[in-house]
């Protein structure tokens, strides 16, 4: 077959790249220790700001697991000057979205707002971080919402698989073994007083950074910060990197049996790497080839060759401690075992032979080329600077990123794959219909297999279903 008349068969060559540097960032520190970073981005009228506090869910004691996430949600539930609704309304009048989230390593409270209203929005930020009141009535509500969310999580095969995976790969004493928001056993007992204790610990300038990007004047940001945070004191707690020891160093299988499930959620992996690993850039390239790019080995094999899945991937969730490495896919039930075989094959292959020049070039070119696209708007600029601060990385980390990716060789990729991917130590989690694949799974001889029967919890009793709304006039469910 020949192309249509006149169609250009020759692929165009790229033009000369327009030079790009990560935008210049002004750094300052207030006398009380608060770090400030401002990245002016002229023309970006919707600015972003984040106050990063270096205290996260992995810093909290096991018997109060969930308190950090709840305390962070509680920041916007009322302050000395505003009750919760008044605070939201004040933000909305500015066109601001004020948010506060906690992760394993840090709390981030911030806002996006038209840059002309920075001062007013910053005032609200100072209010929620410095003067939350944690009203008992509201705290009980958000605690109950978290408990309900945990019930919902069990019903979602994706969340279920992630939860069982973490619970399997880390030793009992590791915080990463539990959900970052805590499990029901500890969340149930958390009170407003617990949140006040947590807040007293994390809220202070010593371990905090205010990061701002957009069409702003750095001097003005520093002046506003001085006014609103200059007299801030206290806080400053934070622990060493959390325990991240593996539960076991042998391969084993856990199945959550969900009768009738049309897909199996697969997770395969083990504790991975901390963000500060010296192998960061080589691992980034290796992960892209194995399971990050659309044309990664896992996706090309499981999706584009076999049609087993809508998408397969793998990667490292790098935290202060060793977050998980996992390969993941949702596959149709009948191909569960073949999909496991192919996944293991790809993990072995990247450890056994060097990647091709074409693979290496494609991954490096992607990571280098997409760098300017990542920083088109202020939000991601703030996020990346926050990550540097959080992990204690040097100021020029972003400036040197592309050169260090470019320097990664096929030998580096092979070395880091061999060191950091350990299929023999991996846990395999399957959430799906065990009746359909159990026999074939045993025949694979991957290690000991535990099968938990699905126990999707439901609220109340069966009565709720019976009373669920009038049945007249409409269609009944599946012909009952």
């Amino acid at each position, binding site marked *: *077959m020949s*192309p*249509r008349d*006149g*169609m250009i068969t020759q*692929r*165009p060559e*790229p033009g000369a*790249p*327009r030079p790009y540097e990560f935008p210049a960032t002004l750094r300052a520190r207030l006398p009380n220790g608060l770090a400030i970073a401002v990245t002016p981005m002229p023309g970006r009228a*919707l600015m972003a700001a984040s106050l990063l506090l270096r205290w996260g869910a992995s810093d909290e004691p096991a018997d109060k697991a969930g308190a950090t996430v709840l305390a962070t949600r509680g920041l916007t539930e009322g302050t000395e000057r505003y009750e919760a*609704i008044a605070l*939201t*309304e004040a933000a*909305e*009048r500015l*066109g601001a*979205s004020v948010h506060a989230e906690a992760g394993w390593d840090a709390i981030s409270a911030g806002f*996006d707002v*038209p840059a002309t209203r920075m001062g007013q929005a910053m005032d609200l930020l100072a209010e929620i971080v410095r003067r939350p009141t944690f009203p008992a009535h*509201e705290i009980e*509500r958000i605690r*109950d*919402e978290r408990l*309900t*969310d945990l019930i*919902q999580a069990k*019903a*979602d095969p994706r969340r279920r698989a992630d939860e069982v995976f973490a619970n399997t790969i880390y030793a009992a004493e590791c915080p990463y073994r539990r959900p970052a928001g805590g499990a029901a056993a500890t969340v149930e007992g958390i009170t407003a007083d617990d949140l006040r204790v947590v807040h007293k610990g994390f809220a202070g300038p010593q371990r905090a950074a205010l990061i701002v990007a957009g069409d702003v004047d750095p001097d003005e940001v520093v002046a506003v910060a001085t006014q609103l945070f200059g007299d801030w004191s206290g806080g400053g707690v934070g622990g060493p990197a959390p325990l991240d020891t593996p539960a076991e160093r042998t391969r084993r299988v856990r199945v959550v049996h*969900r009768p009738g*499930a*049309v*897909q199996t959620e697969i997770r395969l992996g083990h504790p991975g790497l901390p963000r500060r690993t010296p192998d960061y850039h080589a691992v980034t390239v290796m992960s892209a080839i194995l399971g990050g790019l*659309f*044309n990664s080995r896992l996706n090309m094999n499981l999706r*584009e060759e076999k*049609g*087993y*899945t*809508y998408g397969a991937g793998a990667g490292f969730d790098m935290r202060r401690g060793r977050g998980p490495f996992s390969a993941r896919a949702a596959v*149709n039930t009948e191909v569960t075992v073949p999909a496991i075989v192919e996944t293991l094959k790809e993990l072995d292959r990247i450890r056994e032979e060097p990647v091709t020049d074409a693979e290496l070039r494609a991954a490096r*070119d*992607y990571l*280098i080329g997409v760098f300017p696209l990542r*920083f*088109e708007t202020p939000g991601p600029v703030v996020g990346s600077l926050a990550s540097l601060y959080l992990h204690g990385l040097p100021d020029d980390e972003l400036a040197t990123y592309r050169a260090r990716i470019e320097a990664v060789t096929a030998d580096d990729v092979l070395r880091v794959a061999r060191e950091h991917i350990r299929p023999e130590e991996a846990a395999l989690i399957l959430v799906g219909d065990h009746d359909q694949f159990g026999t074939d799974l045993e025949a694979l001889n991957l290690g000991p297999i535990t099968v938990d029967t699905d126990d999707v*919890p*439901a*609220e*109340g*009793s*069966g009565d709720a*279903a019976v009373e*669920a*709304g*009038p049945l007249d*006039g*409409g*269609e009944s*469910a599946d012909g009952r």
Partner: protein
Amino acid sequence: MSVPVVEFTDERLPNGLRLIVVEDHLAPVVAVNLWYNVGSKNEVEGKTGFAHLFEHVMFQGSANVGKAEHMALVQAAGGTLNGSTWLDRTNYYETMPSHQLELALWLEADRMGTLLDALSQENLDNQREVVKNEKRWSYDNRPYGSWNEKILQHLFPKEHPYYHPTIGSMEDLDAASVDDVKSFFATWYAPDNAVLSVVGDCERDQVRAWVDRYFGPIPANGSFPALPDMSLPPVIGEERREVVEDKVPLPRIYIGFRAPVFGSTALDALDIAGQLLSGGKGSRLQRRLVREDRIAQDVAIFTLPFTGGASVCVGWATVRPGVDVATVEAAYLEELEKLATEPPTEDELARAKALTEADELGGLSRVEERADRLSMYATLFDDPALINTMLPRYLSVTGEQIRDACRAVFRADNRVVLTYVPVAGETEAPA
């Protein structure tokens, strides 16, 4: 605060391809967004899900591009990409470092002109399996995952093009053949059925020259099959109720309404109503059901804007443990009724508009979003200038218009109520 005006050029190639260009040199990035005026509404009985399956085939290669190579080339150039299918349209897009723009244009032209040169049974079979897994992942193996299909089936008559969801049915996906792909391509994929928007760090004349070079040789189709009459009465005429047993721990109600078409001022008003009802902590449904009465875990209401006959307005509330579903439904409907009776307060409306304005400022700052909107407004309304007039339209909506729009839509005889309940016999009380 003011949202900057988007300055664009709007022209047509001799073969009918509409080209819209925005020069913006702020960042060294450029977005390409190609809308084809075909979606799941153009599918016929027995072929549901085909427009979307076809979208997947568009990544399986063309005369000068191998299977999955489109993705590989764009990513290796430092770009990002995807495609999507919806009821009213299908689109394909790339965001590239600006010096790689020409590659993206060539790739889009190659598949528009020569897709069938690379078509094979094997590739179709492969993508059929991928799409079936997409359906399982997004709908069948997801709690409450059937709501979208059920809402459409209650709001639209069986013969209406919006009756079936974009993902289609497993049976129809199984039946799709190579001949179907050929005929769909020949029918719909032509320059005179497409709008190409290029936004970002580019030179207008250079873009036009490249587009002429790569897309110019592709012949026009000339004509396209007409859709059946899609007009509908403004209300469905009765309340429709369905109880759905699902593998879920908590009941949830979905409430759907037939709504005015996309582009009407009544839908603008309903969009603002959605913001007042569920956009953020202080919104009415959040405040009443989640914060004060504490009977719902989460609430939402929003519109799905469509052009043919009617849009959809849909929302939900997840019932908190131990709460009667009927209590939640009654409170939810009461809040809708209030807005259908009394205009919102001036302060409420001002806050909703301030947020809308800031959202627009943020959204339009991204080249990808601007390109998508220009293609959308040109494809659906023949009016790309809507990118600059939609915001003023939203900002001019009055409280009375919101009340009137709600009154016309939030009616018992225009309502679908889906009640999801845990599968009988699988319930157990938490400790």
